[in-house]
């Protein structure tokens, strides 16, 4: 059972071809000279140039990055708090509702989340734009953050916190000095997830946004409706490359940090 057999090899090859071929084709043809997307007419980087010269793309990218950065950071703080509440606060009135509100946004159809947030902003008389998109993104990202951080807290060695308390730490300093460093890789991964979710979102942003705050997915969507264009291929390739490099780097870094932490955690437990 430790070697590949022909059946499993074929399945995996076909499966990964299905998952990756569309993206690879898109990236290859973003270097196509011709405007006709599926006819190869020689290598060219002209579509990349036109992406960088297109002011509306650059503006949208800037809006998207700012929304992503702010919403991911706030969502990480709120989501980590929510994860601690779920795992460390003990029972309290309304905990079932709280747990429900953490898990529900992840299975909620985006059109409903988008519509409901928009109607909230309208009835509160908020001007729709940059900040309403950011608020909407914080709300759905914080739930993902809460789940990712919770997963880490569940497998966390409680005795370390208790040892810190026995040694005279206040609860706050025990959290800062013991808990936080241990769950930090999970928090980092959660931030990255929140950032990518915000970067990707089209539906919720379309509802929550107003004039003057067009995000990159909204911009891409309006172009895609007209049809395939080599510029969109180039822009998509840039986004895919950025995200892929980010995710692979982050996962390598967190893996290393995780191995190191586990080792330290074990040493600490052994020395207690």
């Amino acid at each position: 059972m430790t070697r590949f057999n022909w059946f499993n090899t074929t399945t995996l090859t076909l499966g990964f071809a299905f998952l990756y071929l569309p993206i690879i084709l898109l990236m290859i043809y973003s270097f196509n000279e011709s405007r006709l997307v599926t006819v190869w007419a020689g290598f060219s980087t002209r579509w990349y140039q036109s992406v960088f010269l297109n002011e509306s793309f650059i503006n949208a990218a800037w809006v998207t990055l700012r929304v992503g950065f702010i919403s991911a950071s706030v969502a990480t703080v709120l989501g980590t708090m929510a994860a601690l509440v779920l795992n460390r606060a003990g029972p309290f009135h309304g905990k079932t509702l709280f747990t429900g509100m953490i898990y529900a946004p992840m299975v909620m159809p985006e059109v409903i989340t988008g519509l409901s947030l928009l109607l909230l902003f309208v009835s509160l008389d908020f001007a729709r734009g940059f900040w309403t998109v950011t608020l909407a993104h914080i709300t759905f990202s914080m739930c993902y953050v809460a789940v990712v951080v919770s997963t880490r807290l569940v497998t966390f060695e409680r005795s370390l916190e208790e040892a810190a308390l026995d040694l005279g730490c206040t609860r706050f300093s025990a959290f800062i000095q013991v808990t936080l460093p241990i769950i930090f890789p999970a928090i980092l991964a959660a931030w990255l997830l929140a950032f990518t979710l915000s970067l990707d979102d089209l539906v919720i942003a379309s509802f929550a946004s107003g004039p003057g705050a067009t995000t990159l997915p909204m911009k891409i969507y309006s172009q895609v409706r007209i049809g395939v264009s080599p510029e969109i291929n180039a822009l998509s390739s840039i986004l895919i490359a950025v995200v892929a490099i980010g995710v692979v780097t982050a996962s390598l870094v967190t893996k290393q940090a995780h191995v190191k932490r586990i080792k330290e955690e074990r040493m600490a437990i052994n020395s207690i």
Partner: protein
Amino acid sequence: MAVTDIASPPEEIQEPSGLSSGWGRRLFIAIPYIWLLVFFLAPFVIVLKISLSDVILARPPYFPNFDISEGWQGFLAMLRVFDLENYVWLAEDSLYLNSYLSSLRIASISTLLTLAIGYPIAYAMAKAPKEWRATLLMLVILPFWTSFLIRVYAWIGILKKEGFLNYFLLWTGIIDEPLMILNTDTAIYIGIVYSYLPFMVLPLYAVLEKLNISLLEAATDLGCSPLKAFWVITLPLSLPGVWAGCFLVFIPAVGEFVIPDILGGSSTIMIGKTLWVEFFSNRDWPVASAVAILLLLMLTLPIILFQKQQEKQAEASQ
């Protein structure tokens, strides 16, 4: 809900390493709690309220509006104007019924297709050499991180009449005339299977990887053929993963907007798209809200079943 409603229980049941007690703890609980109440729960109450209102040509385009300064009397006056008119409208116009039904049909077929494709992949991953598994897992998750919109868009170039697929099939001589796939239901199925495959593979892989090999060895020792061993042992034991994967694909697929809009044809109506059109093109907010409420009701049952199944699995693993 006020902060006092979520106040802390008596001190003695608090866990030893829990959050600090007293006001600090209450505040700590209250911040994410209130955030979710305001930005998640309250919006649903508003959707419900507007679904009972009438559409008018004004800003905001619905009536009545609740004016907080009128207090309790204003609230009662608002209640009297509410009616189920929008829901009656939804029931009378076959467009809405058809979009609910076709959403259910498309989501069910796509879920089964995703299962049929995802199961062998998850199985092969679980049977792969140990040192390969982390890499394979990463390869399944990685596309999930790249933009959903871009991954759906990539299929236009493949499926359209002059696209890569037709080019390839014509070149190999399998077909003589280009296939019309883009703007059909087939394109939607492909789009959903492609986009949601990781959601199916991950829970399946999680159960298949934990499967006890000695059970299969015992079956083989007792004279079971590999196929029969799969049928009587592997498949039943992987059912929790099958359920989890199916729910994770089915629930978002029902309300899907991007895939039917970009890959589907004008004749395919799915409820997510109907809601979008009702809101952005027809600007009928009350009807859009009623569509949302009914969609939510439709998804409540699968969501509850999913949660029950997750709880059962969590208990079983403890």
